[in-house]
C-alpha cells in the first residue's frame, strides 16, 4: 500500500514536471521560429530536454510521450549535426506532436490520437 502511494506521488510529480517541460518546449519553439541565423543551440537544447523526458517517461510508463520525445531528440540531434535551418520540417513536426501530447490532461489517452 505504502509503495503504491509512493508510486502515485512520484507519478504526480512527473506529470507536474511534464507540464513545466511543456512550457519550456513552447518557449523553445518560439525561440526557434525567431532564430534565422544560428538555431544550433536551440536544436541542442531541444535534443537534451527531449532525451531527458524520454527516459523519465519510459520509466513512468508513459510510452507515447517517451516515443514522441525520442523522435524529437533524433530530429533535433540530426538538425544540429547538419547545421539545418530553423525551419527544419522533422524538428517542427516532432516538436508539435510532443507539445500536443504533453498538453493533454491525460497523456496516455491523448497518445491514441497522435500518430507514432
Amino acid at each position, binding site marked *: 500500500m505504502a*509503495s503504491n502511494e509512493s508510486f502515485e506521488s512520484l507519478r504526480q510529480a512527473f506529470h507536474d514536471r511534464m507540464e513545466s517541460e511543456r512550457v519550456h518546449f513552447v518557449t523553445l519553439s518560439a525561440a526557434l521560429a525567431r532564430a534565422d541565423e544560428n538555431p544550433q543551440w536551440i536544436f541542442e537544447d531541444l535534443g537534451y530536454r527531449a*532525451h*531527458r523526458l524520454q*527516459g523519465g517517461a*519510459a*520509466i513512468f510508463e508513459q*510510452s507515447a510521450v*517517451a516515443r514522441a520525445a*525520442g523522435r524529437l531528440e533524433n530530429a533535433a540531434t540530426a538538425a544540429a549535426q547538419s547545421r539545418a535551418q530553423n525551419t527544419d520540417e522533422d524538428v517542427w513536426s516532432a516538436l508539435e506532436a510532443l507539445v500536443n501530447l504533453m498538453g493533454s490532461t491525460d497523456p496516455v489517452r491523448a497518445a491514441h490520437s497522435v500518430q507514432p
Partner: protein
Amino acid sequence: MPPERQYDSLEDSSADLHDTILNQRMETSEVCRVLVVDDDDLVRARLTALLRNADFEVEAAANGEDALRILGSRHCQIVLTDWQMPDMDGLSLCRIVRAEHGESYVYVVMLTVRDSKEDLLAGLAAGADDYVVKGAPVEEILARLEVARRITHVEYSLRRSNRENRRLAVTDPLTGAYNLRYLMKHLPREMSRSQRYLHPLAVLSCDIDRFKQINDAHGHDIGDEVLRAFVARIASSIREGSDWLARVGGDEFLVVLPETDVAGANRVAQKLKKVFSHYPVSTHAGPVKFTVSIGITALEAQPEIRKFSKLEELLRAADRGLYASKTQGGNKATAVTAEELASVDRQGD
C-alpha cells in the same frame, strides 16, 4: 578487576580469535545492494522505490563521479546506470568500474533510452553485463536484476569459499593460530626485514607446563579447550596487527614480536606467565590452572651485537631458552642470545 570477571573477558575474546590472529575481515552479510545512477531525480526515486520493494538495498547517485565515490565507500553488488549523464556518463563509469573494482565483482546493468544495436554493443564492450532499454516493462527490469542478484551471490559464495580455503591453509584448525607452514614462510620475511632495516625482532617459544597431566586428568576434549584458551589469551596479550603466533607442536607455540628487543620480549613473557599462573581458564570440566614456560630470543637492532644469520639459529635459541625454563621446574622465562648460543655451540664442538 575481579578474577572471575577477567576469565569471562578472556574467554569472550576467543570468539573473535581468528579476527585477532589473522587480522581478517569477514563479510557478515549477503545483502544485495544496488547503486542506481541517473541524473533524473524522479527516475532515481522511481527505481529506488521499485528495487526496495523487491528487497534490494539501494544507493543512488546523480552521475558517474558520485557513483564512484559511493562505490569507494560501500560495496554495491549491482550498478544500474543510465548512459547519458552530465560530467561522467554511464559508459565511462562502466569502464572505470571494470578497471578499478577487481576484488569483488560489480555487475553492471545499463538502463538507457538508446536502443540501437550499435549502442547495445558499445555498452557491452564498455563492460556492462546487461543492457535494458528504458521503456521495458517493470517486470523485465526486476527480472534482469534478479539474474544479477543470483550471479553476484554465486560470485560472493565462491570468493568466500576461496578466502576460507586460503585461511585454512595457514591456520591450525584447533586453535586458530597460524600453522607451521605459515611460520616457515613468514618468519624468514620478518628476519629479512629486521636485518635489512636494523630493527629488532623477538621470538617467544611457549609451552604449557605438564600439559600431558591435564589431558590425563580431564581428557583430550578438555585439553583441547585449554589449548584454545591458551591461544586466545596470548592473542589478547600481544599487539594486534603486528605480533602473531603459530602452533609448532602439540602444546608448543611460537610468538613473533616484530620491532621488539629482548627486554621488550621479556616484559611480554612475564605478562604471559602472570596471566596463566594467576588465572585458571574456564573449561567444561571447571577451571583449569596451569603455568607456562617460555624461551626468549631476539635479533637486536644494534649493529655491534652478534646476530642470528639463519632462521634455524633463531629457533634453536628460543628452544634452548624454553628447555632451560622447563629444566628449572617451569613457570619461567629464559632468554638466550645469539652470543650465548654460539658459546654453547663452541662448547659442544
